[in-house]
């Protein structure tokens, strides 16, 4: 059975070039970048080159890139920076953020902070006006995700960053899904901090970065060493960082083609499913959207059964965020864009990537219809 991987928003396979760079690093560049000897110094140079490669992908300067262990750490760190450098007790975010933002904020609420969770529209988006209205005297942070991980909608983060800058408030965006999937240019926007992850752009897991605009005061989340200009302790994961940098370089070199190809396959997949299966709802914004994201709710069925049956056909999909699988509660994103419990239960997320072929899309379109029909025949909800 052939595997058709359509869960690129959960994670991506690594590109061969990335594996090559990493293998070489594992073999030869074992130095600790803090060491004085030549092996250590060599690692230090590679680390700096990697920082430049990642910076380039988002139009930033190398010194604005701080490597972390991934997107979740970056999100937590950005929040910590606001807490420790700004006086105030109020934070603004949206009600469709990733749990890596929502959970730390919920924890802060228990410590006396106030959090405004902006309600999103039917596409899962907020407006700059909404954000501005929510600002209070002691607002210390605005955090709005760039691209939603479940339904793919792209928020107007550049305009929201303008609003935040106007009021002198830090603006953080979870850019994990956006990196390598939409053009980002930090030299022309006012985003203060952006979280990034390597394994969503064909790099290794366990590596990420936080973009911190120069001039933004920084404090460590993890203490214990002088690495990353004394704000992120821990011996640098050189092979991982080099892999991330290679992935960033590849993403930057082919961003336009990547977006164009994926968007075409995405729309073909959407049409192939929506035109063939009745009682289905396409979630997320029709145009302002992640190029590889298709999210559909099929009425009268449970997403869980659909996923398992697809898997038995070799098709890897998800019902939403991989981080919440195992829970039967419908996704907070789907509930907050106004879907009912019943409809949200039948959700399917197919996310495409660089290794997806036209034929993969055709196969999925063909396989999915009989499965949905079969489940509907057996469903107690159809009567």
């Amino acid at each position, binding site marked *: 059975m052939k595997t058709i991987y359509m869960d690129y928003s959960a994670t991506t396979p690594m590109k061969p070039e990335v594996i090559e760079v990493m293998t070489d690093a594992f073999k030869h560049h074992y130095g600790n970048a803090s060491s004085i000897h030549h092996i250590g110094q060599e690692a230090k140079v590679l680390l700096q080159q990697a920082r430049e490669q990642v910076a380039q992908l988002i139009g930033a300067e190398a010194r604005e890139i701080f490597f972390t262990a991934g997107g979740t750490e970056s999100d937590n760190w950005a929040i910590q920076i606001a807490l420790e450098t700004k006086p105030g007790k109020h934070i603004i975010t949206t009600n469709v953020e990733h749990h890596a933002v929502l959970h730390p904020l919920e924890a802060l609420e228990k410590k006396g902070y106030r959090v405004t969770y902006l309600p999103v529209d039917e596409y899962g988006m907020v407006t700059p006006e909404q954000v501005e209205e929510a600002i209070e005297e002691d607002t210390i942070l605005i955090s709005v995700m760039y691209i939603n991980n479940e339904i793919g909608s792209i928020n107007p983060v550049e305009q929201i960053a303008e609003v935040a800058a106007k009021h002198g408030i830090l603006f953080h965006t979870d850019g994990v899904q956006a990196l390598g999937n939409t053009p980002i240019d930090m030299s022309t926007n006012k985003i203060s901090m952006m979280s990034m992850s390597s394994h969503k752009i064909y790099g290794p897991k366990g590596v990420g970065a936080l973009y911190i605009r120069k001039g933004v005061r920084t404090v460590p989340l993890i203490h214990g060493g002088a690495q990353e200009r004394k704000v992120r302790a821990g011996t640098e994961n050189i092979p991982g960082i080099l892999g991330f940098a290679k992935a960033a370089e590849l993403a930057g070199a082919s961003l336009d083609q990547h977006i164009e190809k994926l968007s075409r396959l995405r729309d073909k997949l959407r049409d192939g499913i929506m035109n063939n299966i009745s009682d289905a709802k396409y979630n997320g914004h029709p145009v302002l959207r992640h190029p590889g994201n298709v999210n559909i709710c099929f009425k009268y069925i449970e997403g869980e059964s659909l996923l398992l*049956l697809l*898997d038995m056909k070799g098709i890897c999909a998800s019902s939403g965020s991989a981080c919440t699988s195992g829970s039967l509660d419908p996704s907070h994103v789907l509930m907050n864009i106004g879907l009912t419990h019943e409809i949200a239960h039948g959700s399917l997320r197919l996310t495409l990537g660089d290794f997806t072929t036209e034929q993969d899309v055709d196969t999925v379109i063909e396989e999915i219809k009989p499965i949905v029909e079969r489940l509907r025949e057996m469903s107690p909800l159809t009567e």
Partner: protein
Amino acid sequence: MTMAKKIKVAIGLSGGVDSSVAAYLLKQQGYEVIGLHLKLHDGIDPLHSRACCSLDSSLDARLVAHQLDIPFYVINLKESFQQYVIDPFVEQYQAGRTPNPCIECNKFIKFGAFLEKARQLGCDKLATGHYATIYQQNGRYRIKQAKDSAKDQTYMLYGLTQDQLAHIIMPLGDIDSKDTVRRIAMELDLTAATAQDSQDICFVPDDDHVAFLKQNVGSFEPGNFILDDQVIGQHSGIEHFTIGQRKGLGVSWPEPLYVTRLEAQDRTVQLGRAGDVFGKNLSGSQINLIYEDLAPGDTREVNAKIRYAQKAVPAKLIMDDNGSFRVYFKEDVRAITPGQSVVFYLDDDLYGGGIIESKLS
């Protein structure tokens, strides 16, 4: 064994040795096997528990499936489990009864919602690691006690319908003993082979159902201990007690006292002496018969037991209307407990069973 077209079977993999070996046997017999692990609740700290549904066990089950090279999925039935097992469990205790949640779980979850799920996934049958044998005779599905009578689990299975039985396989019924199962597991080097048996109520931490109930209902309503129509003390809630209980009553009395009756309405606990705990007759409800159908008024000589770990004793079953029935034992039985099940046998066959409503004089 060869089959023209492979029959697709879902096996419930708990992570324990029984279901692991059952999965292996099915594969040997030529079935196309899919492993499913049930996620029913998240109440127990996996580090401190060996109960059957902890996080640990889902990992064990996954490793077993990997070793056997069968597809594996975790099925989440938490909502159904709460509705059909945990909520009634709490309500029963509040009503002064002593429920048996494993029986409800088999009826509504393992062979209800779970079987439904398996069928949705295109499986013709659902298999489990129960020690019992399902066979067909006279157009009926019947259940025989396992060859290893020490492991017999038919007591928990009396609630199954003919329709459910038509879709169930229990490969361990023909195994002569648990030791054989362990040996097979060892030979296959199954990760789970060393796992202990699960015996406690899987969703109750530390086997402390009182603490669990308290957590679910907040607080219990206190009431009186009654002996010979006299109030002899106060108790802190009928939920603490079951029929026949002697320990932990919290009343001092010159002779040993036993719980003989729980009154939900006025929250009283009736106490008695050793002899008062025995009885010969009971009435019940919700009868389900596996072996054959009976009509109201019919009677049968059966062997019956009112506890899982008990020897069945001769009794007469009398059918009444609407699933209610009476049982007249030939000898005294101890602690006839409302909410528990009385289960009937005919030689090695599971005849049927029902819920105990009250002790009859």
